[in-house]
């Protein structure tokens, strides 16, 4: 099976009439990567996928697959296979016919097709189910049939449009692992569309986080989580506590931000925000719930936050404490349960501290809506 074909989007714009669905996308996807586009509904991520698969043409810019310009090539002329959100299995064909439809198109004999179907059915652990109709399979099994059907065409790039969204939670978690394993086994490039950050972070080598029509950041799951380029990424990926303020001083990659209500906070300027912040600029400081702790005496004043407890809950592995945050917003602190953590009474005033390297600061901007 071919492997390791890179996909490049260069200055790509997609428009529907006057409406700009994707604005100037520049993405390099390494061959053999599991790459995710992560974004809310209507952000243009599915549009990008449809452009890569050839169902629509970009208004401007290029799509390269394995270095070849895909301009003017239809879906069937591209080395891609698409898995639809609703899977789009053919309901009147048996499972094995579904899987080998691409071979039927090329005129392969029934014997050949059956043999290949059995191989693929083995791979997805559905041996002996080939003669069933798709409607006789469970949700997870249908999922695997859709993957096998796409892989049967031996594509260089597999495109997946939120294929797990129809499954229930348990199965979804299970399929994440399975998808990742299949990807490693076949070694081809996977491009995955999702609005579920859990899926994107657990499965992907790299993630592109999309705001409306725009790609805000591309990087590994860890860098997107720990080193967000924009306020949107910081607020979209994972839970985050946000503090608005103005930059007071900058030194050694860190900025001191004078917040409206929480005093001065020292935070690390992220890689993507470097050079984009100057003294006096509006900025946003983000601190993760797990980055907040009960303050020790030695804590410096600019890494301390005073706040009142609203309520708290015990989650087993951790305690979540919800406090009165900036601008009336709720602030969340997660304390790992090591035995000493305890529930705090509502109204109690706590002093929290954080590590300035774990707090990040970016220019003030758009936030992900909850």
């Amino acid at each position: 099976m071919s492997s390791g074909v890179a996909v490049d989007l260069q200055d790509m714009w997609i428009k529907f009439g006057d409406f700009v669905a994707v604005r100037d996308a520049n993405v390099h996807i390494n061959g053999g990567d599991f790459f995710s586009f992560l974004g809310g509904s209507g952000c243009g991520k599915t549009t990008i996928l449809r452009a890569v698969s050839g169902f629509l043409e970009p208004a401007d810019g290029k799509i390269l697959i394995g270095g070849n310009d895909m301009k003017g090539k239809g879906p069937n002329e591209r080395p891609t296979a698409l898995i639809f959100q609703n899977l789009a299995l053919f309901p009147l064909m048996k499972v094995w016919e579904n899987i080998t439809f691409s071979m039927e198109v090329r005129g392969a004999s029934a014997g050949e097709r059956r043999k290949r179907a059995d191989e693929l059915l083995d791979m997805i652990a559905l041996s002996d189910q080939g003669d069933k109709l798709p409607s006789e399979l469970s949700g997870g099994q249908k999922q695997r049939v859709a993957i096998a059907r796409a892989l049967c065409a031996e594509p260089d790039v597999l495109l997946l449009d939120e294929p797990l969204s129809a499954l229930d939670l348990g199965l979804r978690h299970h399929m994440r692992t399975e998808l990742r394993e299949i990807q490693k086994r076949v070694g081809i490039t996977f491009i995955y569309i999702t609005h579920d950050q859990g899926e994107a972070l657990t499965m992907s080598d790299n993630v592109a986080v999309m705001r409306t029509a725009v790609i805000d950041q591309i990087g590994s799951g860890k860098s997107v989580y720990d080193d967000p380029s924009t306020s949107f990424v910081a607020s979209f990926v994972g839970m985050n506590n946000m503090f608005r303020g103005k930059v007071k001083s900058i030194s050694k990659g860190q900025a001191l931000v004078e917040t409206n209500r929480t005093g001065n906070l020292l935070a690390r300027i992220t890689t993507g925000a470097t050079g984009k912040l100057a003294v006096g600029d509006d900025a946003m400081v983000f601190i993760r719930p797990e980055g907040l702790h009960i303050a020790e005496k030695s804590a410096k004043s600019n890494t301390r936050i005073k706040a009142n407890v609203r309520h708290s809950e015990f989650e087993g592995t951790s305690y979540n404490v919800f406090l009165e945050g900036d601008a009336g917003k709720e602030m969340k602190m997660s304390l790992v349960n090591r035995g000493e953590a305890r529930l705090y009474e509502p109204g109690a005033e706590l002093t929290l501290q954080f590590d300035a390297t774990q707090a990040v600061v970016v220019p003030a901007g758009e936030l992900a809506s909850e």
Partner: protein
Amino acid sequence: MLTNYFKTNGMVMGWGLLLLVFFWIVILIILPQIYMFNLSFHPHLPPPEMGGPKDFLTLENYRYLVFGADGNPDGYNKVDLLVFIRTLTAAAFVTILDLFLCYPIAYYLGQSTGGGFVRILVLLLIIPYWINEILRAFAFKIIFGDSGVINEFLMFFSVIDSPIDFIRANVALYAGLGYAYILLMIFPMYNVIESLDRNQIEAARDMGAPWWMIHKRIVIPYAKPGISSGCTMVFMLSAGALAAPQILGGPSSLWFTQLVYQWFNTGGNWPQASAYAIILLLACLVIVLSVMKLFKVNMGDIGK
């Protein structure tokens, strides 16, 4: 099931509906058919002698279609048999013609995302049916006549020198019949195709399937209930049509229903007419059921 039915509709309404359905099916459909069926096994007698000593059960009326009157020198009733067979083949031809004409339209309507143009198209299909069948048939007669629009047009551009006799060639008849039942073919297919998931077509395209293969493997199998429902109706109705063949048929071509009509009216021989009508009905049923069997369509699918 019935208790639920009465619970949702109420006693009065429930019984009312049941009675109406009963009236419709038994009084209007079954009883007349049984009467005709019975009549077809009796000799042709003036009313006072019916039930009298000359009345007995006989297959004479059925025999007549095959062998003709007693002492027929040909041995077979060639004229009527020919009409019978020609009617069924022509009905089949009209059905196939309609299928080929309507499938693309139904597919286009079913897969389009709606919008003004589609609504206008549907309106254009429906509005001509506000005009009654006989007027439409006469309109076709005028269009296809010797000095009709088509002949005039062709002669004006010197494509032909003398008018083509479309009526004698039965072109007008096929066109008229085909047109009469177009909606009955389009709408069942459109209904089914509309519910076909567009992603399936895109998935097939993505896997490289050419358009004809998408239709062969995905759209047509999916639309089969609609196709069979449309074909059944068009075939049954064309075989049983009377007005269009009467008006548009060539001088030498009788439709089997015209024979039935002649026996009922001109001939006044009701038993003979009943026998002919029943033969036509049975022949149509047998043909439809065998075609359904051939294409593996269930009766239940047609109701979809």
